């Protein structure tokens, strides 16, 4: 198909009027043709405006509240990300906190051990040490 022939499919594609096979072929082409994508986008704007000409009146008065009420039940997909990030933050904080706690506990054990050893050393090196000290002399 020539470039010109592909471009001719942009209008029916934007209207949703291509038959299955033709649509699939055109979509494959669209993936690699910026010119056709721009053409489709511009025809889609035109298609989107067609409804403006339809005399149809107003949607039911309570509809706006229904739309908002349903939105309250479902978070938008994108806004789940900040939630995820927040949840990840909490988990990370918990992990870090745990690590800090463990590290602190280990340090305390060490400090206690050092203190113990120092005491032992102090006892050993004390002048009035008794038998052990004398044994080494």
């Amino acid at each position: 198909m020539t470039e010109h022939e592909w471009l001719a499919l942009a209008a029916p594609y934007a209207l949703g009027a291509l038959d299955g096979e033709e649509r699939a072929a055109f979509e494959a082409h669209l993936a690699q043709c910026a010119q056709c994508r721009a053409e489709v986008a511009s025809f889609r704007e035109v298609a989107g405006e067609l409804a403006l000409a339809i005399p149809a009146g107003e949607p039911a008065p309570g509809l706006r509240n229904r739309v908002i009420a349903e939105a309250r039940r479902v978070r938008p997909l994108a806004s789940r990300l900040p939630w995820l990030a927040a949840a990840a933050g909490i988990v990370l904080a918990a992990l870090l906190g745990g690590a800090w706690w463990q590290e602190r506990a280990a340090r305390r054990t060490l400090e206690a051990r050092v203190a113990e050893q120092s005491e032992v050393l102090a006892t050993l090196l004390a002048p009035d040490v008794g038998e052990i000290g004398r044994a080494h002399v």
Partner: protein
Amino acid sequence: MDSDSSMVARMAAGDERALGELYDRHARVAYALAYAVVGERADADEVVVDTFGQAWRTAGQFESGRGSVAAWLATIARTRALDLVRARGRRSRALERAAQLAAGGVASPVAAGEPADRDAERAEARRLVTRALAELPESQRRAIELAYFGGLSQSEIATELGEPLGTVKTRIRDGMTKLRELLRGAT
């Protein structure tokens, strides 16, 4: 006033007021589109709820570089409306109207009885589109309506109207090209 795309961005962040504002601006057109397809008020209302529900859920996927919010909403509304008609095993209103030759399509009763639009910008857009459609030959307008509101493919339209496929293709392409000229040239 915020732009449509900034409202969609606020929706993606979970701002329900932005959804309300988007609804105030676009619900009426979504409803008109839905009504052209489904042909019943209650069903058109359902389509509007579905449309804004889907817009709310997928707001984060909207890319402003790929088209306007209005075109994005119209695509959602049209798809939802056609889904509903098919689920009910019915033909769209646009198809029913096309079957009656005298009716002249869904957009043809040129919006004379329309209530005045509060939004001047929207009223102007409505006037432009109505005038542009009125300038198309009826055969082109009908083919476009059968595709967009009727959900028919070009070959289905050819069958529906009893015309050669090549003729239908030419009508759709020429009609859309002319509409684009009229709408873009005028703004």
